[in-house]
C-alpha cells in the first residue's frame, strides 16, 4: 500500500473539528478494518488534539495532516500560538491525578493512552502535535 495523504485546514471552531473528525473516521476505518477499537483510539486522540488547538492556542486556523500506509497512520495537528509541549505535560500525569480531578485535563491523558507514539515540535511559531498509530499489526 502506497502512502496516502489528506490535508485539511479549517477555521478554529468546534463545529469544524466535528467535520475533520468525520473525515478521519473514514480514513481510520480504511486503515484498521475490523479493528474498530484501534480506529476509534486514533480518532479520539486526534479529536482531543484539535479541541486543544481550538480552545487554548488562540490560533485562527487549525491544520490536520493525515498520512497512512500499510504500517502506520500518522496525524499532525498544527496551530499557532505560544509554545506548549503536550508530550511533557502528558508525561507528568498519572492515575492519581485522574482520580483527583472533578473536571478538565482529561484530553492529554487520553491522547497519551490511545496512541502508539506522541511527539511535539514547535516550528515557525506553530505548535505541531504528532500522533501515530500502527496499522500493520
Amino acid at each position: 500500500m502506497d502512502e496516502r495523504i489528506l490535508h485539511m485546514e479549517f477555521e478554529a471552531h468546534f463545529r469544524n473539528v466535528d467535520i475533520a473528525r468525520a473525515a478521519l473516521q473514514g480514513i481510520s476505518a480504511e486503515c484498521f478494518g475490523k479493528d474498530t477499537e484501534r480506529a476509534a483510539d486514533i480518532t479520539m486522540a486526534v479529536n482531543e488534539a484539535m479541541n486543544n488547538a481550538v480552545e487554548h492556542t488562540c490560533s485562527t486556523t487549525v491544520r490536520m495532516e493525515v498520512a497512512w500506509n500499510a504500517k502506520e497512520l500518522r496525524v499532525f495537528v498544527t496551530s499557532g500560538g505560544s509554545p506548549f509541549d503536550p508530550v511533557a505535560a502528558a508525561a507528568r500525569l498519572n492515575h492519581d491525578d485522574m482520580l483527583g480531578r472533578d473536571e478538565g485535563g482529561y484530553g492529554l491523558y487520553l491522547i497519551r493512552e490511545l496512541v502508539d507514539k506522541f511527539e511535539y515540535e514547535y516550528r515557525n511559531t506553530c505548535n505541531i502535535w504528532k500522533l501515530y498509530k500502527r496499522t500493520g499489526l
Partner: protein
Amino acid sequence: MDIKIEMDDDVIVLIPEGNLVASETEDFHSRIEKLAVYNVRFVLLDMGHITFMDSSGLDAVMIISKHVTDGGGVFVCAAPHDNVLKVFRITWADHKIPIAATRADGLQMIRELRNGHV
C-alpha cells in the same frame, strides 16, 4: 443535541442522542442546568444513544454528577457504548461515577445507592 427527559418514579432519566463533544457541551449544559430548578435528586444518564464522547463530554457528565451528588442526590450513567465506556475507564472516571450496563440496571443501582442517602 436532542435530549429526551423521562421520569421513572422520582428518578429523572436523561437520554441525550448523538455525539457528546465540545461543539455540543454548551447546549447540553444549558439544557441540564434548567433541571436544577426542580431540585432533582436522583438522575440517570442513559448513554445508549451517545455514539461518541470526548473529554469535553466527559467534563459535562462530571459537572452534572458533582451538582447532583453535592446536593445529596444520586447520579448514575447507564448503557454506554464500548467506545464511550473506554473514555470513562482510561480516565478513571468510572471510579467516580457509578456506571450500569443497562438502563434497568442503572435504575436498580439508584434504588440501592439512595438507601444510603435518604
